[in-house]
């Protein structure tokens, strides 16, 4: 088994920055990522950009080139196409091309980023309904864009960005349905003074909206009761919703939905690290010290899986945590560390000033957090919101009991697309706060892996492999 001073999981801005920093401090570092190329979600495919017109994705995307270049020059063992399916506090198991092996470490930094928040609404399992993030990934990795009547529905900065990027690419948007609840605007105002420190982000947001309007895309605000409409063959034909008190339908063959992003906590949860409920972001995040260490010694977190902060914060956090690790590993003295960390922390604080405003403004409407009874919440096992509510009302103690009783969360996605919703529904039905209700126990493997691969990580078979 190979051993490293530090293994970083995830090659987004946080992971790349962390690995680069730690290597520059003389640590023996490996970085593992399940994508083909380093970049993470924001800088997907940045090594070989696809679109010939760089204006479509804009400068924030190409900023990643420099980060990826520095990373590629760093003295780091980079394993791509490698999915980590188990982590302990001293080793991990990863799968590459159907073969698994173990890697040992003194410290591990989990930088697995965010996933889009599940957006359950009636009809969201229909082919043709995808997330905004998915559309952006296709833009970045294939130069593909939805063609034919397109509706974008939901809320959040990424939704606006993707709408803009698509319209820059010449894609027509039949309707942009903004589901941000009207009262969010008022509630967010109290965070405006703080947000002004993050004026650059505010400006970016208003520019995106202005750009969309110039292109003739006028968002419909205060949309609710989203519903995908299909023909008798199950093909997507449109989207039905309420706006200004009336029910409307817009025809479409592609429907992109989005309700913000949430931390990917699978690995930290599987390690048994402490997590807390973030009421403003309506998601779980690992409990961390100032420098990103979790409640499990030698396990660290940086980037959007620490709580949503965006790409620049992720990069800074990656540097900060790596600096901390270098100090703990004895590669950096306390004074140098104090100096470096102070500067990074100040920058992080500035970058985060906008968050309370954004989080308040883009809190999803209740219908997406706790959908109507007939809505499928567990896509894999096809369990509806109504079934979960019923279980909660008949004495089911929490999400793990519910999972055992109705199989929600037992399919291949391992609860990634229903976990948040199930906790919310149980909390509502039993009239308890979400943190009291809790979350699924997440266990190894955190990605499905063949039994042959699991068998293959046995020390006996590993030494056999080494011998042969």
């Amino acid at each position, binding site marked *: 088994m190979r051993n490293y001073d530090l293994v970083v999981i995830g090659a987004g801005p946080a992971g790349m920055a962390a690995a680069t920093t730690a290597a520059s401090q003389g640590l023996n570092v490996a970085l593992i990522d399940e994508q083909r190329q380093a970049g993470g979600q924001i800088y997907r495919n940045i090594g070989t950009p696809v679109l010939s017109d760089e204006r479509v994705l804009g400068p924030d995307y190409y900023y990643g080139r420099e980060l990826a270049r520095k990373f590629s020059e760093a003295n780091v063992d980079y394993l791509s196409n490698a999915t980590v399916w188990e982590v302990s506090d001293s080793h991990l198991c990863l799968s590459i091309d159907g073969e698994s092996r173990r890697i040992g470490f003194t410290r591990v930094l989990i930088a697995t980023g965010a996933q889009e928040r599940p957006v359950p609404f009636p009809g969201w399992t229909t082919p043709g309904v995808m997330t905004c993030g998915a559309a952006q990934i296709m833009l970045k990795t294939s130069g593909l864009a939805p063609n034919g009547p397109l509706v974008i529905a939901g809320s959040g900065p990424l939704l606006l960005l993707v709408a803009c990027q698509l319209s820059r690419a010449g894609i027509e948007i039949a309707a942009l349905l903004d589901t941000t609840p009207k009262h969010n605007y008022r509630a967010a105002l109290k965070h405006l003074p703080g947000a002004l420190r993050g004026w650059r982000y505010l400006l970016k947001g208003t520019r995106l909206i202005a750009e969309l309007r110039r292109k003739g895309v006028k968002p419909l605000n205060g949309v609710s009761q989203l519903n995908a409409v299909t023909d008798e063959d199950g093909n997507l034909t449109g989207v039905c919703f309420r706006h200004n008190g009336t029910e409307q339908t817009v025809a479409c063959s592609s429907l992109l939905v989005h309700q913000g992003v949430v931390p990917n906590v699978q690995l930290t949860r599987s390690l048994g690290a402490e997590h807390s409920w973030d009421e403003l972001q309506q998601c779980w995040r690992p409990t961390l010290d100032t420098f990103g260490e979790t409640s499990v010694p030698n396990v660290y977190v940086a980037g959007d899986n620490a709580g949503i902060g965006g790409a620049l914060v992720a990069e800074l956090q990656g540097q900060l945590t790596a600096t901390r690790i270098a100090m703990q590993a004895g590669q950096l003295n306390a004074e140098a560390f104090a100096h470096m960390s102070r500067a990074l922390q100040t920058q992080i604080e500035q970058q985060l000033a906008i968050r309370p405003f954004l989080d308040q403004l883009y809190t999803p409407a209740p219908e997406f957090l706790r959908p109507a009874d007939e809505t499928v919440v567990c896509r894999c096992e096809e369990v509806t919101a109504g079934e979960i509510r019923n279980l909660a009302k*008949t004495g089911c103690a929490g999400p*793990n*009991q519910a999972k055992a009783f109705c199989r929600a969360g037992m399919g291949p996605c*391992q609860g990634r697309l229903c976990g948040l919703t199930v906790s919310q529904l149980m909390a509502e039905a039993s009239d308890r706060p979400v943190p009291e*209700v809790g979350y699924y126990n997440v266990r190894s493997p955190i990605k499905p892996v063949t039994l*042959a691969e699991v068998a293959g990580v046995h020390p006996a078979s590993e030494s056999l492999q080494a011998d042969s």
Partner: protein
Amino acid sequence: MSAAAKPGSVKAEVTVIGGGLVGLAVARGLQDQGLNVAVVDEGDIALRASRGNFGLVWVQGKGDTCPEYARLSRLSATLWQDFANGLAEHTGIDVQLSQIGGLYICLTEQELEQRRIMLEAMRDAQQGDYPFEVLDHDALKAKVPEIGPTVAGATHSPMDGHVNPLLLMRAMVQRFTDRNGQLITTGPVTKIESNPGRFVVHSGDQVIESSRVVLAAGLGNRELAPQVGLSAPVSPNRGQVLIAERVKHFLDYPTGHVRQTGEGTIQCGDSKEDVGLDTGTTTDVMATIAHRAITMFPLLAKVRLIRSWGALRVMTPDGYPIYQQSEQYPGAFLVTCHSGVTLAAAHAGPIAEWIASGVADPSLSLETFHADRF
């Protein structure tokens, strides 16, 4: 709405402490005897073997050093079909009971031979009434064509079967609450005030008063038993279980290590009789289980593992149950075992009758299961 009681004071004829398979089975039996029952349990996350087990209704090999236990296991297996029917009738939940017989697969000739000797001795102890057969590789392959080429053979017994343990739990909870059982999930019982004929059980803000109390708290019994003048020397023994994705149905028989559920998922691990799995790291144990599963059924090699867990067996020093009424505080009963699925039908039947009436059917030989034996 909920059958779950609100904080405060509750009265019942019997309080069952522990809402796992043992507690719920006993509670069901007591309800059938017309008693008003409260079950006190912990919340969503607790040590709960009932949520992590293998789902076998298993007889062969159980009680090799205790004929009374062998008899009890077999009795329960014969009561199981009625028990399952009762659940389906009341709740509409089919717990997927299948009792077509079970296979205990042996990888080596030596293992198979040892197993044969053990089962023959058990048959002798039961005066020849103990059906099983020893299958060599070819005989096994005739029953299960998917068996691996290196497997030595198996023992087969028509007494064995399996259920879906999760649906079982769900059905038992539903039946209990539908019958106006009070399910109180306020957390661990921390104190039992014992007076002859009157017990006051404290759980969080809840106080439950009853004339009888049943300790069915699994590992929790260890702490609780002394409060009612009993002893429950139970200790944990970890078992790990792997669940692989749904695949087309190929395996009818439950085996001690691998079974296919009604949904098509593949459960791999150890039934309680097997080699202890409490050594080594999780990765090693998982790898060992996966390796053995593939050796037994090579077609599983490319099937994906979706979930795994470890669950704690509730083990007495000799592995056999404890059934005992307190002499110091009559009305307090202790029920604990390490095969709560298999014994569920017995717990809901004769064991519950014993608790309801205070008199045990002599053929159960319950005195064999007193904790005084330790």
